């Protein structure tokens, strides 16, 4: 605050200024002021000292010196992330010369409500709102001229996101996106891209813009499309979708850690062991292993935790510390409700529309409200601390926070209550951001009124809130893994190596799954050797019990205490286990059409691999090979992109070229999605003469039988003509279809995606967990992916599955159903409706009565809403509480003050 030294705000991409003493952003953890030693006048020139003098807490001590710490650790995990593409690359596109050419990072800050412009999208040059924006992809990616030959794997997605966000800010924006290939290969991403394109009407242009020109402060782009036509247009703003580079200090890290780097200065790993560096005990996760997006990073992060945990299982628990919470103040909780209301500005997210101060003052008029306040960012660390203090100071025993969504922030606020001895259930949220500020952005008065309504309702409910117990249950230290493919075996091995019994259930008569059909990995390793080693390890492991030709029949119980029946050879076996991992895989899709099944010369990529495995002799008479991508995928039989086929096709094309260089290989594609380092293979294939031809869904290549041979008819966009290629071999990239997941989905009550793969708990942050606690997910059962990714994911699932096993106890959700036995008539409706099998009918005297299995209950409330005699109450959502909330909404509930205000 008092620092006189202004510096560029690096957090805001230098679009703003801050002081040498600053906090980067309100939600920063830790939220304490940081003094930039490079800029501080005191540190550099022995002058100033203003901050130390004004800090009332006396927290600034310039006599502190850097210290070297010696830490004894069992393992080192490298997660330094990625670096920035060099300035020279950006300058080629006018960055630095033309002010309205911005990087994607800058654009991110410009559209952010807490950014330097408070979310107003403006041009840096003249602060006007742009009308026409272009996004240029592959800046510093797929570009050998800057030594970044690889694809950065995330830019296509974030560009679409940034474009969508921009459209949300300025609906009249005209946005063009320049792609070489649209690489949205992630799970559900293709569908999301299509939705965004349709919803926002983006101009998607397939071209690489070589440079940017500026005329009259408008940015001029010129490009050539694949039909040879030259185009140009002018834009108000250009966003450079900057790629992910290796971290700047990659070499220093490598030297210190004693690991090797790959040719692009990322960490060197192999497809069979993607998280292991070249040095034992040092592991890698995230973008340093290769450019990747958030879910992949999160997956690798969990995966690497599993590996470290395997290595150090003997040391587990020896150095941990446990958090203790103060005893609950039961007396205070039982007192007459004293409610504290905190109304959040959320920066300008809420305060920009809703009159926060008016809402706060309105809260004061509500009964039982003993304290009220407005906060800038309630979720920031210092605000949480202040809230805790106010609660204590005013002896509040109920807290209402009017802010954002309880889905994301409720646990954080509940944790705060817990830390000061209040039961977390004595908390209620009113979502005045999503439900008022966002949806009624154009009607500030109404939004404010609605916020008052929501606060009034929340307070009405808060008056009746009761503390809820937080029970824990013991865990059976055993895992059940479904599926004996690469993913399943990896999971089983990891859990077993972490010291827990594991049962591996495989429905076929041998282990290996789809890995059996692969000959080489993408990085050129012998896939058969990887398979053999893996099977050997699994078979030899004393803690792994393999059940072949076995299938799961039923599962009951809850996290920590599952009981499953597995059928094997007509017999069934009961198994008790604490966790379950789904690794049931997927299968290569078998397409219709394309003469597949009619001609022996038409095969799938996996069938081609078998042929390649036989060596050169298998291609003796082969002159022309035609590969067709996206057969059955991306909108034909399968809606999704199968992610791995492009890389697989290029890999196989190169193998054919290696076996017999004179073979002509043609690849028809829609977008070449050789993301990450696989881009190198794509480039190599082009250099070796593989011919790539783009097609659009309305002009698909056709496979026709001609005499004894076959030919492929297609439209060549470059020539602008129909062409016909006589082929000796047509290879179809058919993608990955989900396995027979419906049954298992019903059995385990784990939902599937529209495409038929298992749905994870959160696409970004919980990629290997599912909606049901204690059940984890990995491999092709989750979605199409290559071996490298399947192995990472399997390790991640193993880490997540091991957590309850390690803890030995699991906490049960406090919001569960309670059945009042006296009122229950034993009709059993609740038990039949419960989607989680959490209600059982038990004999109670003469009659049967319903009883909740607390640990299985998810608190969905279906039972309570259907009970004909209202015998079921949900913790935290009792009938009384909900009725109170509803009544508070009615005009009678709002009392005269509202009526008066309306006048």
């Amino acid at each position, binding site marked *: 605050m008092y620092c006189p030294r202004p510096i560029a705000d690096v957090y805001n991409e230098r679009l703003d200024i801050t002081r040498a003493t600053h906090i980067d952003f309100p939600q*920063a953890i830790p939220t304490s002021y*940081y003094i930039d030693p490079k800029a501080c006048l005191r540190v550099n020139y022995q002058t100033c000292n203003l901050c130390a003098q004004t800090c009332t807490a006396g927290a600034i001590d310039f006599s502190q010196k850097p210290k070297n710490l010696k*830490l004894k650790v069992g*393992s080192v995990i490298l997660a330094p992330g990625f670096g920035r593409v060099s300035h020279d690359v950006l300058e080629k596109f006018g960055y630095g010369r033309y002010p309205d050419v911005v990087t994607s990072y800058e654009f991110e800050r410009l559209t952010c409500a807490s*950014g330097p412009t408070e979310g107003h999208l403006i041009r840096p040059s003249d602060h006007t709102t742009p009308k026409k924006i272009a996004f240029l992809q592959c800046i510093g990616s797929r570009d050998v001229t800057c030594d970044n030959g690889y694809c950065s794997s995330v830019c296509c997605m974030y560009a679409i996101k940034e474009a969508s*966000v921009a459209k949300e800010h300025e609906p009249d924006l005209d946005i063009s996106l320049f792609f070489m290939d649209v690489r949205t290969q992630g799970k559900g991403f293709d569908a*999301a891209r299509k939705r965004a394109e349709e919803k926002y009407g983006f101009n998607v242009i397939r071209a690489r813009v070589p440079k940017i020109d500026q005329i009259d402060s408008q940015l001029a782009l010129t490009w050539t499309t694949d039909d040879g036509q030259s185009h140009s247009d002018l834009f108000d703003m250009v966003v450079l979708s900057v790629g992910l580079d290796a971290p700047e200090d990659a070499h220093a*890290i490598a030297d210190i850690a004693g690991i090797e780097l790959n040719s692009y200065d990322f960490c060197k790993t192999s497809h069979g062991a993607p998280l292991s560096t070249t040095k034992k005990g040092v592991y890698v996760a995230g973008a340093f292993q290769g450019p990747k997006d958030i879910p992949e990073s999160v997956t690798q992060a*969990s995966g690497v935790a599993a590996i*470290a945990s395997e290595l150090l299982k003997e040391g587990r628990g020896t150095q941990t510390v446990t958090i203790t919470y103060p005893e609950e103040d039961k007396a205070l909780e039982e007192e007459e409700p004293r409610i504290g209301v905190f109304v959040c500005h959320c920066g300008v997210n809420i305060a920009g529309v809703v009159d926060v101060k008016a809402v706060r003052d309105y809260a004061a008029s509500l009964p039982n409200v003993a304290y009220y306040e407005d906060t800038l960012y309630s979720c920031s660390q210092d605000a949480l601390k202040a809230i805790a203090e106010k609660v204590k100071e005013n002896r509040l025993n109920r807290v209402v926070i009017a802010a954002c969504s309880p889905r994301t922030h409720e646990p954080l606020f509940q944790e705060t209550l817990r830390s000061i001895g209040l039961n977390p259930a004595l908390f209620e949220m009113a979502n005045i951001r999503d439900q008022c500020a966002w949806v009624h952005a154009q009607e500030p008065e109404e939004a404010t009124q609605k916020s008052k309504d929501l606060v009034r309702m929340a307070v009405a409910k808060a008056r009746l809130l009761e503390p809820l117990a937080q029970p824990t249950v013991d865990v059976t230290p055993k895992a059940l893994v479904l599926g004996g493919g690469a993913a399943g075996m990896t999971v089983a091995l990891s859990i077993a190596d972490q010291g827990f019994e594991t049962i591996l259930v495989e429905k076929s008569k041998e282990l290996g799954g789809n890995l059996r059909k692969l000959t080489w990995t993408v990085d050129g390793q012998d896939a058969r050797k990887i398979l053999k080693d893996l099977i050997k390890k699994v078979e030899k492991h004393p803690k792994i019990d393999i059940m072949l030709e076995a299938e799961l029949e039923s599962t009951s119980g809850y996290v920590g205490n599952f009981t499953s029946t597995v059928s094997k050879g007509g017999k069934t076996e009961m198994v008790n286990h604490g966790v379950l991992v789904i690794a049931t895989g997927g299968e290569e899709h078998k397409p219709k059409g394309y003469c597949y099944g009619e001609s022996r010369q038409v095969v799938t990529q996996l069938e081609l691999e078998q042929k390649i495995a036989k060596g050169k002799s298998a291609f003796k008479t082969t002159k022309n090979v035609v590969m067709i991508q996206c057969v059955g995928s991306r909108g034909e039989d399968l809606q999704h992109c199968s992610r791995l086929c492009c890389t697989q096709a290029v890999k196989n094309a190169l193998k054919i070229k290696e076996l017999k260089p004179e073979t002509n290989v043609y690849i028809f594609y829609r977008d070449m999605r050789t993301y990450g380092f696989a881009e190198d293979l794509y480039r190599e294939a082009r250099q070796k003469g593989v011919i790539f031809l783009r097609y659009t869904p309305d002009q698909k290549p056709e496979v026709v039988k001609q005499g004894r041979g076959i030919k492929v008819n297609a439209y060549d966009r470059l020539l602008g003509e129909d062409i016909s290629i006589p082929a000796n071999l047509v290879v179809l990239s058919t993608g990955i279809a989900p396995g027979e997941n419906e049954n298992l989905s019903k059995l385990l009550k784990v939902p599937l995606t529209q495409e038929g793969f298992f749905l994870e708990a959160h696409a970004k942050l919980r990629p290997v967990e599912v909606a049901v606690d204690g059940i984890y997910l990995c491999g092709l059962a989750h979605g199409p992916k290559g071996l490298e990714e399947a192995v990472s994911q399997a390790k991640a699932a193993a880490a997540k599955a091991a957590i309850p096993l390690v803890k030995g106890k699991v906490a049960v959700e406090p919001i569960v159903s309670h059945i009042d036995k006296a009122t229950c008539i034993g009709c059993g409706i609740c038990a039949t409706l419960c989607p989680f099998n959490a209600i059982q009918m038990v004999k109670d005297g003469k009659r049967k009565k319903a009883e909740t299995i607390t640990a299985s209950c998810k608190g969905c409330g279906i039972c309570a809403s259907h009970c004909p005699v209202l015998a079921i109450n949900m913790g935290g959502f009792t009938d009384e509480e909900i009725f109170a909330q509803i009544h508070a909404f009615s005009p009678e509930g709002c009392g005269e003050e509202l009526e008066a205000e309306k006048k």
Partner: protein
Amino acid sequence: MSKAGAIMVLGGGIAGVQTALDLADLGYYVYLVEKKPYIGGVMAQLDKTFPTNDCAI
């Protein structure tokens, strides 16, 4: 020699933070090392995330 029960995680971005959380849950003491004055890395600079446009912070 008894095995150590502590692990060092270099980098406090989303990968480092997730690793640290999982390791702590798995019973290890974690040293999370970060250059910047805050954790969260680049993700803390993002406004929204693809494809759901969820808030990144």
